[in-house]
């Protein structure tokens, strides 16, 4: 019987199916960070339980941690307590823990793939919606709530309804100056923030096949922003070349055996999806968002949609959104002043993002009145930046690196954008107040961020690449 990639993996993890269709799903890996786990661990203790399969669980703090002076105690006592609580829970229950300054610490969605903990064919959950990132390696990976973290700790299972399947194909060849982030923002702008709710998405097509592993991680990371339960890409040689020899990847004969198994993970030619959508890479330009959800995005040379183009029930929300941003319907974003630039997050905090940013700012200077935060996604990324000399290119252009963490993506640490200020951010959400109360976020890829960092304005990066 023909199956989709999703069905092949899902079906192998069904422990039991209830009469109403609810599924008891087995989970291969649970990742825990400090924000969504303390109540789950407390629940475990209250019930007198221990983690059922501790070797399948990895913990690390990432959301709250400072990006400067990580060798010193965390200043905010509430943040410190939350990080300490994770460390104490991991120690008490005997779980792997990569704490502050541990060489493997970083944003959990960056660390999972780069250490080889994330592998094709797995089911992976974390109390974090951007868990969808790991689907890029051919896994079923999705975000869960804290109650479900507790279930996974206690039984390595969660109760789920099977999502519907959707395939998003991007055919053709992408234009120069367009990044994986632009693919994702383009897709979300066409789908809206709820267009894939209830679905698990597989990305396919020529333009997807021709992406690097890290680009795939960026694309799958943003699946949740159109409401999807998760996103995934069939594993291929790109995946296997990336994974081979990583610390937790299988080795020797086991590696060969696994790769043969993983090569069966693709959607059969006649497999049926509940929904199919096709886009063309030639239609995609560098993207920016103009509003307060990730679906409010457009090509950088386009104008903000008019009020009339929005359906009537949505106009109150649309007006509220543009008012918050201080933008007008119908106007262009080009040339608008930028106060902050943030390169980092589980979306765009990997080595290729730093290479892209550095390639554009090389030989130029940081604009005077822009504050720029460059935050590697992990210590491994940070070490690679230094090994490649990217830190020197950045320093010559007037930029400094910070230490790894989620940072200004959700501003749980000190990296907050002040009220009313504009930030071009490579992160994943432009919700009201996401980067600090009153902060105005413009989501974009690393090249648009770099162009803003050297010009102080919204600038089409292709103008600068030409030089």
């Amino acid at each position, binding site marked *: 019987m023909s199956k989709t990639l999703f069905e092949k993996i899902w079906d192998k993890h069904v*422990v*039991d199916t*209830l*009469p*109403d*269709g*609810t599924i*008891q799903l*087995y989970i291969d890996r649970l990742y825990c960070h400090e*924000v*969504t786990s*303390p*109540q789950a661990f*407390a*629940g475990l203790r209250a*019930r007198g*339980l221990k983690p*059922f399969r501790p070797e399948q669980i990895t913990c690390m703090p990432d959301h*709250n941690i400072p990006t400067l002076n990580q060798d010193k105690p965390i200043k905010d006592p*509430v*943040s410190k*307590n*939350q990080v300490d*609580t994770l460390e104490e829970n991991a120690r008490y229950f005997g779980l792997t823990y990569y704490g502050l300054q541990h060489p493997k610490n970083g944003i959990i969605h960056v660390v999972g793939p780069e250490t080889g903990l994330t592998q094709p064919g797995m089911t992976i959950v974390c*109390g*974090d919606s951007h868990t969808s990132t790991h689907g890029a390696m051919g896994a079923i990976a999705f*975000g*869960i*709530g*804290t*109650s*479900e973290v*507790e279930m996974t700790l*206690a*039984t*390595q*299972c*969660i*109760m789920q309804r099977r*999502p519907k399947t959707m395939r998003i194909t991007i055919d053709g060849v992408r234009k120069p100056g367009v990044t994986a982030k632009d693919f994702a923002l383009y897709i979300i702008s066409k789908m809206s*923030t*709820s267009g894939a*709710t*209830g679905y698990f998405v597989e990305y396919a097509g020529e333009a997807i096949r021709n992406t690097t592993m890290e680009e795939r991680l960026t694309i799958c990371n943003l699946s949740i*922003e159109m*409401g999807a339960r998760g996103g995934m890409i069939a594993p291929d040689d790109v995946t296997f070349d990336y994974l081979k020899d990583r610390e937790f990847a299988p080795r020797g004969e086991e590696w060969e055996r696994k790769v043969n198994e993983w090569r069966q993970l693709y959607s059969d030619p006649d497999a049926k999806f509940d929904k199919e959508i096709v886009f063309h890479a030639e239609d995609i330009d560098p993207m920016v968002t103009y509003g307060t*959800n990730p*679906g409010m995005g457009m090509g950088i040379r386009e104008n903000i949609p008019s009020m009339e183009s929005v359906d009537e*029930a949505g106009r109150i*929300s649309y007006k509220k959104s543009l008012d918050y941003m201080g933008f007008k319907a119908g106007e262009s974003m080009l040339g608008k002043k930028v106060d902050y630039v943030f390169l980092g997050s589980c979306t765009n905090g990997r080595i290729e993002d730093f290479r892209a940013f550095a390639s554009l700012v090389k030989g130029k200077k940081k604009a005077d009145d822009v504050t720029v935060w460059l935050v590697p996604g992990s210590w491994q990324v940070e070490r690679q930046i230094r090994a490649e000399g990217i830190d020197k290119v950045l320093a010559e252009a007037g930029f400094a690196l910070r230490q790894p963490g989620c940072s200004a993506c*959700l501003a*749980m640490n000190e990296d907050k954008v002040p*009220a009313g200020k504009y930030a071009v951010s490579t992160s994943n*959400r432009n*919700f*009201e*107040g*996401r980067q600090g*109360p*009153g902060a105005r976020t413009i989501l974009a890829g690393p090249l648009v961020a770099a162009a803003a960092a050297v010009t102080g304005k919204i600038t089409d990066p292709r103008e600068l690449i030409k030089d």
Partner: protein
Amino acid sequence: MKTKFNIITSTCVPLPLENVDTDQIIPARFLKATTKEGFGENLFRDWRYDKEGNKIESFVLNDPTYGGKILVAGKNFGSGSSREHAAWAIADYGFRVVVSSFFADIHKNNELNNFVLPVVVTEEFLAELFDSIYKDPKTEVEVNLPEQTITNKATGKSEHFEINAYKKDCLINGLDDIDYLLANKSKIEAFEAAR
């Protein structure tokens, strides 16, 4: 937290905005707690209070005209982050039901896991319900979980809503998924052994 759910009849709090994301329901800076209590204080924090902590009078939670155990919201409620803190905030504030024409997946699950019932209604029912509430803030709605019906008592209009039998049973009997899973641990071990 485990409260048995049966029939709830209450007035409603209207929030006709669409795409209300979980960052609005509970901003990230309030996620630093290590317990589940007290999040209701900061429900819709940045819409409810200004920078100085003063109430923003125009926001519906600060308007004494409206109150009750049922929150009625525009479509795509709860999009964004998976933070269960959003469901804890809604429950802690005193809401038992959220009515909308569309919910984001993870948030919907989180509500169910905290004995808050998400009720999906048609766009027409939702628009009419907002109308009824604005015309008469004392408008009551009856949510009947055993029958899976929601009734706008001002118009008498009633709709059937969907909920899977397993979750319905959990809510009615005050059981959570962990109770179920722990009772089925032998199946998990058998599954692992057979892999």
